[in-house]
């Protein structure tokens, strides 16, 4: 009898958990949305770093880029000349990126993919990790080029929220980026 009760309880728990899980198609839409935000960030970083970008335009883009992050998020910066990784608050990082002492800067992100799937946490938020490769190319006034490639891991937080706009009930996924850690740096 006890066995049956245990089986029923386990079955109920399993059914409740599966009822709360997202369907694969819905989960895929959420995954894609988070990837899209990382792609947006890559465009913003490219614009902020580009020396051809106007100061006001760069500041506008910084504002937009900051909206993508959780408060107090930081980003790791590495160089080929040192093993040290320096972590900056994200706003400070953008400011520094805008002022880098190169005549030309080209930043590209590629191989943007999940290394840790978005998984639901006890607080209801989904957390995952997306990895990217960043190719940085800086050219000085004298024409000297500095190039490095960095592999970075970005923590992603996705939270279900609801709001009301013009009488429309809007259930949305709030995607926010967390810390960006450097995992590899190479030439």
């Amino acid at each position: 009898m006890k066995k049956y009760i245990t089986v029923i309880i386990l079955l109920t728990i399993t059914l409740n958990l599966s009822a709360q899980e997202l369907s694969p198609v819905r989960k895929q839409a959420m995954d894609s949305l988070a990837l899209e935000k990382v792609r947006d960030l890559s465009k913003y970083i490219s614009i902020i770093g580009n020396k051809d970008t106007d100061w006001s335009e760069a500041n506008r883009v910084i504002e937009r880029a900051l909206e993508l992050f959780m408060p107090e998020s930081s980003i790791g910066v590495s160089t080929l000349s040192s093993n040290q990784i320096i972590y900056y608050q994200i706003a400070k990082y953008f400011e520094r990126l805008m002022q880098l002492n190169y005549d030309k800067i080209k930043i590209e992100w590629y191989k943007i993919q999940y290394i840790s799937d978005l998984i639901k946490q006890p607080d209801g938020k989904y957390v995952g990790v997306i990895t990217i490769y960043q190719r940085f190319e800086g050219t000085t006034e004298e024409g000297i080029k500095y190039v490095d490639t960095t592999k970075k891991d970005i923590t992603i937080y996705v939270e279900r929220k609801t709001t009301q706009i013009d009488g429309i009930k809007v259930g949305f996924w709030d995607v926010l980026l967390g810390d960006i850690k450097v995992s590899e740096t190479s030439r």
Partner: protein
Amino acid sequence: MNKLQLLINYSVNMKLKTIIILTLTVLSVVSISSCKVSQKKLEKQRLDSLLTRSKVELNSLLSDTCTKTLDEKEKTLATIKSYQLRNLEVGELINKTEKKLIGEKKAELEKEEVERQKKHNEELELNKVKKITKTLSEKLENNFQEIAEAENNSQADKLIRETLEYFITDQANVLIIIGEFNGEKDYEKPTTIIKYLNLIKDTRKSINKIEKIHYQNDKIKLLELKRK
């Protein structure tokens, strides 16, 4: 003696028979007459009842609180008229009811005409809005694409300014549907039109199409987009 006796007997029998026959005849005449009286009485009762019921029904039809439909009222009146009651009061009530029902019929036809006209106008307006929306949707989607493909920032900014002209404010809401699951829509975090147009400019991509336009005074107050 015997003959006399027989004659007397015969005479008595004949009288008795005659009496019996006469009695029966009188009884049947009385009975028939009584039956006729009873039938007349019943007929009168039936007519009285019809009159009373007809008056009640007609007064009910004339009342403003009558809940019957016009069709039901017309049927009731036709039934009462079919009784062909010869009564002055009922006749007057029938005339009044006929006039009232003609008035009601006219009012109903007028109401139907007004509603038909209203529906027609609504359809015309809806088609007009649909046509404008279709044209505007095409125009906006075209602008989005042109912003994404702009050769430089100033060209993109010019297109953004042009596009903003269609909106009540640059802070007009934009909702982006990323999918619909079991009848429930999933959105991106709500944004504003100025932010959305700048996103297209910055990312050089227009990945959404127009799903619905919400107007306020001929300008867009809310734009619903959906992944292409």
